[in-house]
């Protein structure tokens, strides 16, 4: 059935894509609602009706079912934001008024501005220690503190300057305020739990089309994006059709690069620390991983797919159009609004989608195994998938007999990642847990809200943060200490060092410490899944080496070289290799008749001494006595007395074995075994010696049947 193909969405062969949304979406097309708003601080999708506010918690794994609701006064709604502790709701009623409602008592109060000289652009709640709500007005910022008892606000500070429009994301805690003729001059503040940081003024680049035509930068063309705990800003230059990427530091804003675009409209999402740039006109998405400051796309531009659509036998092909009709909307349609960080709200159809990366497809799209492994190890969204993919990649490159240095590099990456993640997990377990809790529950206790809709056309537009015409409000937040959202701030000078672990370390240093990159709260996710993405040496052994061993029988030398490189990586990372890997290596060497190298590897400890290996050497040594000797020596050196005595006996060194047994008090080996050897030697002399030894060594020996039997044998020999 043709329809079957559609069902698979991204996973279907032939439907190439690296990002997808999962069907079914959250349906929020409730009648009577007057638009949809998004509160990015709490990740609430909010739909006001005439006298109520309905909201869905989008962070729940399955945000479905009926929304929660709050009664409110009637009136127009320009934006809604819940306080960060969820105790109050801020509702922007007009360009001059914001109403705050205490959810417990139902008390309300209003904050108004002078109608003649200024308008309210918006507001948001903050976890900054000195204030709770930030009010953004055309004349500047008002920092307000909230007093829950009296349900009142008082002005803490006013910052005066002209604002054309602004941009704020709770994730970054960063507000950008545009001013100037072309709206390219920016003032920025970061309102974080660590305090307020003023970003130096900067100007964004705008190409000129004609001599006297000066384009004005629109809020829609600027996007704040937070990945790896760093804050970036993407600015679309419509004239040159390019995208400028800036990175924020405490003391500077630095343009990193210019990315190409294929659309006059773009949207930006961040999924699992990957920046997704949606080329809306072209209906494709380009992925960037800026972790190592590389700005090359992860893969070619590919369409966004809908996964898991129900079977529809009438569907003939799986083009974007047919997918659209299957779910009843258009991919990258007019009604799509991109919510921070990874949601899409189809306001026309009342649907909420969550963006996902198709790691499998991305992994399959490149043959550069080391860099794909690096990429995968940085992902957090689907740890078990990451792990499975990584193991499969390592297996594949071994089976394909890629050059040993390539395989070595790949294994290095896997183990480096393992050590790093273990270190992070092990060093700050308590802290990590705190972050996790915040991550899971952090969105619930607090409020703050964001615009999502246009008054004029309810139920259509969900807008990102900024709306020059409308306002979104700012309010406050009770300061949550250690909320996993501290914003460490670095200077450019230490930029190179800001890999993830660094960032984590830094967060434990004073938050306000200067000279660090401006970072935001997203990094909380790190460590959360650390234990599951990481691949331990034992897993490498079980899921790679044991599985490829059979297929590599034709070329043991290659596998030996690979294992050597693996041992090198393991040792470099300060880890321990599983003993069975040594057994495997010794076996492979013996099979290739490379006994001399076994001896070399044992003597320089490339094969570390252990019982498993010792036993295997004894076994392999049946064909090669010197190797057997290596095994016996290893037993002795490891102090495995019982096994050593048994081995000596097997070799026929029963007198030596006796001496050894006496010295190390080995009583677990049966006397009969020694006696039997002496009998086999047909030496009455030796048999008598062994008998008398046991009489002395084990007092109870005289009472055993062995004693009687062998004494009889001895008497017959003499």
């Amino acid at each position: 059935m043709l329809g079957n193909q559609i069902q698979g969405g991204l996973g279907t062969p032939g439907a190439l894509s690296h990002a997808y949304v999962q069907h079914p979406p959250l349906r929020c097309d409730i009648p009577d609602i007057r638009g949809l708003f998004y509160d990015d601080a709490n990740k609430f999708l909010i739909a006001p009706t005439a006298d109520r506010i309905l909201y869905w918690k989008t962070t729940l794994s399955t945000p479905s079912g009926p929304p929660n609701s709050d009664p409110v006064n009637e009136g127009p709604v320009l934006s809604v934001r819940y306080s960060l502790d969820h105790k109050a709701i801020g509702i922007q009623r007009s360009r001059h008024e914001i109403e705050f409602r205490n959810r417990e008592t139902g008390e309300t109060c209003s904050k108004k501005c002078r109608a003649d000289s200024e308008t309210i652009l918006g507001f948001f709640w903050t976890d900054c220690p000195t204030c709770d709500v930030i009010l953004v007005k055309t004349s500047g910022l008002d920092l307000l503190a909230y007093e829950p008892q009296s349900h009142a606000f008082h002005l803490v500070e006013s910052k005066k300057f002209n604002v054309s429009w602004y941009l704020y994301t709770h994730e970054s805690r960063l507000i950008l305020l545009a001013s100037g003729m072309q709206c390219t001059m920016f003032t920025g503040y970061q309102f974080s739990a660590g305090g307020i940081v003023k970003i130096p003024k900067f100007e964004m680049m705008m190409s000129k089309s004609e001599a006297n035509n000066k384009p004005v930068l629109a809020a829609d063309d600027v996007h704040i994006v937070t990945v790896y705990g760093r804050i970036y800003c993407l600015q679309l230059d419509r004239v040159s059709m390019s995208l400028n990427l800036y990175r924020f530091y405490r003391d500077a804003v630095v343009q990193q690069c210019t990315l190409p675009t294929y659309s006059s409209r773009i949207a930006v999402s961040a999924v699992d620390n990957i920046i997704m740039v949606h080329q809306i006109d072209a209906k494709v998405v380009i992925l960037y991983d800026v972790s190592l400051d590389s700005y090359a796309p992860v893969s070619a531009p590919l369409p966004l797919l809908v996964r898991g659509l129900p079977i529809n036998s009438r569907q003939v092909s799986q083009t974007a159009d047919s997918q659209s009709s299957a779910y009843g909307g258009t991919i990258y349609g007019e009604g799509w609004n991109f919510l921070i960080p990874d949601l899409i709200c189809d306001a026309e159809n009342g649907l909420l989608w969550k963006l996902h990366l198709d790691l499998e497809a991305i992994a399959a799209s490149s043959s550069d195994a080391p860099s794909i492994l690096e990429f995968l190890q940085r992902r957090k969204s689907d740890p078990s998938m990451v792990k499975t993919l990584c193991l499969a990649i390592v297996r594949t490159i071994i089976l394909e007999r890629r050059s040993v240095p390539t395989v070595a590099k790949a294994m290095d990456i896997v183990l480096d990642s393992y050590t790093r993640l273990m270190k992070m997990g092990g060093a700050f377990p308590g802290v990590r847990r705190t972050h996790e809790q915040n991550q899971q529950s952090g969105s619930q206790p607090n409020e703050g809200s964001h615009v999502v809709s246009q008054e004029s056309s309810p139920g259509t537009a969900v807008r990102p943060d900024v709306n020059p015409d409308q306002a979104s409000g700012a309010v406050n937040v009770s300061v949550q200490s250690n909320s996993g959202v501290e914003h460490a701030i670095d200077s450019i000078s230490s930029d190179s060092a800001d890999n993830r672990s660094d960032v984590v370390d830094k967060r434990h240093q004073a938050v306000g410490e200067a000279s660090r990159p401006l970072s935001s709260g997203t990094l909380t996710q790190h460590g959360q899944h650390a234990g599951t993405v990481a691949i331990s040496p034992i897993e490498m052994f079980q899921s790679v080496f044991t599985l490829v061993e059979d297929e590599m029988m034709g070329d043991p030398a290659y596998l030996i070289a690979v294992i050597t490189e693996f041992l090198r990586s393991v040792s470099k990372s300060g880890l321990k290799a599983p003993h069975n890997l040594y057994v495997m290596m010794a076996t492979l060497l013996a099979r290739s008749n490379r006994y001399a190298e076994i001896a070399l590897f044992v003597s320089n400890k490339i094969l570390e001494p252990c019982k498993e290996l010792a036993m295997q050497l004894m076994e392999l040594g049946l064909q090669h006595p010197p190797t057997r000797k290596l095994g016996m020596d290893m037993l002795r050196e490891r102090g495995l007395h019982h096994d050593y005595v048994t081995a000596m006996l097997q070799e026929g060194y029963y007198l030596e074995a006796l001496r050894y047994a006496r010295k190390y008090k080995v009583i677990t080996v049966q006397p009969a075994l020694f006696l039997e050897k002496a009998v086999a030697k047909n030496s009455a002399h030796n048999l008598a010696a062994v008998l008398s030894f046991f009489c002395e060594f084990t007092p109870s020996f005289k009472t055993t049947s062995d004693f009687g039997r062998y004494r009889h044998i001895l008497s017959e020999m003499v």
Partner: protein
Amino acid sequence: MGLSSAAAGDGTQLCVFDLRRGQQEGQELDKILFFHPADCPILLQLSVIGLCEGIVTFTRIFSPEEDCEVIESEKHSHVFYQAETDIWMVLVVEKNKENELAWRCNALHGILKEAHSLFAMFHGPIRTLLDRQPSAELARGHLRTFITDYLSDFNVGKKLQFPTYRDSLKERGTVQMLTVSREVALDVQSLTTVLGSCLGNVTCQSLVLFEDLLVSTTLPPDDTLNLYTYAVLRLTPRALYANASSWSYLRKGTSVSAGPTSSSSNGTTAGERPLLRDNLSKGKDGFVAADFAATEARGAVPLTPILWFQQAEERMYLCIYQHKSLTILLLVPASSLINGEEGIAHVKKQMLENASQKIVTVEQKLTRGWGGENAYHVSGYRYLLVDPERRISRASPPGKVTTLAKDSLLALNMLRQEVDLEKSRYKRGDPCHDKDFEACIRTKNNAWVIAKISRGRELYMALEKGGETLLYASTAVEKFSNRYCEGAFSTD
């Protein structure tokens, strides 16, 4: 003049002969494949070889399985070695009062064995040469140059100086290993992998040496030993840059004494005279090769020698690369290299491209961990550790051994002679069962000389200025064993 007359003076003779040749009356001369000194009168040569042949034949009556090893006469010792079936090498050394106790038969035996092993590595078995050219011109030519070059190392003044009691804490025919940490060992192994892949599909073998010590090998023990011996004799930095003064005055005479031979009369190549000192030098590319500028070059490109590895059963090209103290011997299977020198050039290029970085790193790490000449000195002990099975030994540094009194060394030499006898006696009885053995002897000068064999491994030591009880001696051994031999010689 030259080597021959110098050597003749001390009455030392070394001959190689083939019992299958010259069995007809009047053709006895045909048996002789090599005789040193070369200017020895033919009649004397014939009489020496006649005597040796007679002894070999006679002793076979009593001992058909085991070869005659040595004949001691009043004035001479004859040391026998059957190098290949019916091809014998005999070393005759003259006795005098001064050196009566000086030699150990096994040490002399080791020289013959080493000479033959090296010869076979470069030229193949003598028998093969004889079969290829029954007139024996080829074999005689190679033997003459090769053994003469080999013996040059034993020249002291005008005499051939063979190992004496002073060398009783040395074991010829063993490899000395460098002890490295696991981390470095893994780095070296990683380098070995890269070296192995220089040819693409076929694996190249390699030996890595640091100074005069072996770091890693992929060859079986016997082949490793031969190549290692050659490397230490001629290739390591110390061997390469040591212009042995004892040799230089003879340089001129070498080709004369070697004489014109049918195959190599038109000059020599590295392949034909691998042991000729000054023949080799390190080039700008880091590879060590025959230096034709120094000899009578005919505009020829230096040829890469092809070596025969008996245990690996393969002929391989030998490329020598040197970086500071690190010497890498890369062996390229001859059968896999169709286009000869051109292929070698390609392999060398590959090696430089892929391995240079690793070579530099490994050299640095080894240098950092290198304890110098006296790295393996254990204070208070003068020792020799031998693992005959793996052909490995380790000993007190020569500089420390020289501090021993003559009496201690003589006693140790005697003891070793005894142990050698004991070993061969026991080996005849039960070849696959190791016999443990221990002897501690108090010498005239109140030193202890000790020999201990445990599970096939041998430990010899001399302790001077120690306590006088046997307990002292055995405790000293126990301590040494636990500390440096992982308990291999500890008393059970």
